[in-house]
């Protein structure tokens, strides 16, 4: 991925740079909003990462200007303002995702990949196929090896989100936001427990595991093939 990162704090920029280097992505760093606007207008990027509090323009203004300028590149706001209302401001202001500092490196990578995937339009088909799994979005039915999986409505939502991000790491925060519409992490282990239930339904009667737990960050849907 080619990523534009707008951040006025060099240390934060270095951290993100290292993370993305490790994942093999190309990072272009700008430390002012106006320079970033200029560059975003001239070069194509897969994702843009914006800090909110910059020296000249703030992240929300940059988002608005980019959208007004017809640039639809997915935007992730990476900010020290992490309250629920701050996230709402960012997302209502045209950003596609919002991540608060401090963050897990895996969380950032997973979010960027998901944004890139969504922008490349892989998730909009009526039937999503991945390995042994099938997700019929309209009929709201799920299959593994052509066997129907009896999922509750919420479990289907979860399954569908995994299918849309098949083979990639999906974090708890991503699930909370996309499946349960919550932008904070409850104290209770609700995500793990609900994933556990989905896992049992996906694996019941099959030999191979369906969901892999990635320690400290989230889950990944496996292809379920022998």
């Amino acid at each position: 991925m080619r990523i534009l990162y707008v951040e006025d704090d060099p240390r934060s920029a270095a951290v993100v740079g290292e993370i993305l280097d490790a994942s093999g992505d190309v990072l272009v760093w700008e430390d002012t909003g106006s320079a970033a606007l200029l560059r975003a207008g001239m070069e194509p990027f897969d994702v843009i990462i914006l800090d909110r509090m910059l020296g000249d323009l703030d992240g929300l203004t940059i988002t608005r200007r980019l959208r007004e300028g017809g640039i639809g590149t997915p935007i992730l706001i990476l900010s020290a303002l992490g309250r629920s209302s701050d996230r709402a401001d960012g997302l209502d202001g045209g950003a596609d995702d919002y991540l608060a500092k401090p963050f897990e490196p895996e969380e950032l990578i997973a979010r960027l990949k998901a944004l890139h995937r969504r922008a490349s339009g892989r998730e909009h088909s009526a039937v999503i196929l991945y390995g042994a799994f099938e997700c019929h979005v309209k009929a709201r039915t799920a299959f593994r090896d052509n066997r129907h999986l009896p999922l509750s409505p919420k479990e289907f939502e979860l399954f569908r989100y995994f299918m849309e991000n098949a083979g990639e790491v999906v974090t708890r925060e991503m699930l909370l936001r996309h499946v349960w519409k919550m932008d904070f992490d409850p104290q209770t282990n609700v995500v793990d427990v609900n994933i556990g239930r989905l896992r049992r339904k996906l694996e019941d009667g099959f030999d191979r595991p369906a969901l892999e737990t990635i320690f400290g960050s989230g889950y990944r849907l496996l292809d379920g093939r022998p």
Partner: protein
Amino acid sequence: MIRAQRSIFSRLVAAAIILSLVLLAGLWWLAREAVSATLQDAAAAEVDVDIAGLADIYASGGEAELAARIADRLALIPMDGSASHYLLVDADGKVIAGDLAAMPPLDPATSQSGVIALDRESHAFARAVQLAPGLSLVVARRTALEAPVLSSLALVFTAGGTVFVALVALLGKLAARRLERRIDQINLAFREPQGAATLMAAGTAPSDEIDELAAHSAAALARVNDLLAAYKDTSEQLAHEIRTPLSHLDNRLVKALAERPEPRIAERLAEARGEIRRIVQTLESLLDIAASKANRGDSSGLAPVDLSALVTGMCELYAGSAEEAGLELRWNVAPDVGIVGDVRQLSRLVTNMLDNALKYVPAGGRIAVTLEPGPVLVIADDGPGIAPQDRARIFDRFYRGRGRGEETSGSGLGLALAQAIAERHGLVLSLEEGDAGAVAGATARDMGGAVFRIAPAS
């Protein structure tokens, strides 16, 4: 948004019109009485002069002469339309002369005078006198002036009164409209976010009470706006200045962990990262509490929320976790219960209540969630409840109860934030007093543990 249903100014104008009508009616009655009294006095004087003349005639000419003169006078029709009426009767009541049909109820022996009825419509002032034993004379006089004077008086009052009332209404309306515009400007300033500035711009040097009120309002609004802006700036800076270094610190720990230290050290490093997360959460919760309190009563940014769906969704989300903790979570949610609110904050409120219940109810316990129209949300359990000495403090910031497992898990801000969010939505979060049997909601009854109730403030 509160907006006046009825304007004080239209009521003031209506009151002014009614008051002037009442005043006019009163004046009209007084004038009428005064005119009548004056005219009657004039009639009385004329009657007395007439009687004196007739008495002279009787003294010099006797009864026959008197009867003849009375007949003469009756034959004469005066130019001004006023007319005198007479009656001369003897001791037996036999009419000797005159045109009055009967003796009026006046006593001749005492020269009684009074107003008598001539026929059904007209009245006259009359006096009865005794000229000699057995001879009584009644002279009555109706003033020709009374009817026309009274009718022109009525005309003057009707025409003048109409003009007067119309003027009162017009001037009242103009004055009211002017006042209304000025008051509206103040109200508008309170309704709109940038109101203080427009009010300041509109205001001149205070010349009357409304100008003074406008100036005070503008100053108060400006102060509130400044405070809110300062609060927002401070909380953003606070968040930024604390989260950024924490983020650097966290990153060092991540790097240290990446070097694969021995397990014991890795565990310590992971714990340190957990502590960083807790600090961030505490900061966020404190700022959220402050924001909820600052925005209390401000309805901007709120939208209709399907509370029934929200509570059901949250209960479904928590059902599995409750079961794993050995708890029975039941919910009884009335359909279509709505509220105007912030859906994110309301989710947070319900989540915090459920987190709290799951944390403090021991395994084997039951938790019941009930939502009724109102909205009234009750979260009851059959756990150990809240000790009497702790009841007053559980909503305090940083107060932690004795949960199961770790003795001080969580930030101690969950219930404080829940309460602040409830207040932001005009609701009150309270811990029900006494035994749980008194609590509304079938499933919440007789649980015996803590009973939290979220209901409208009034």
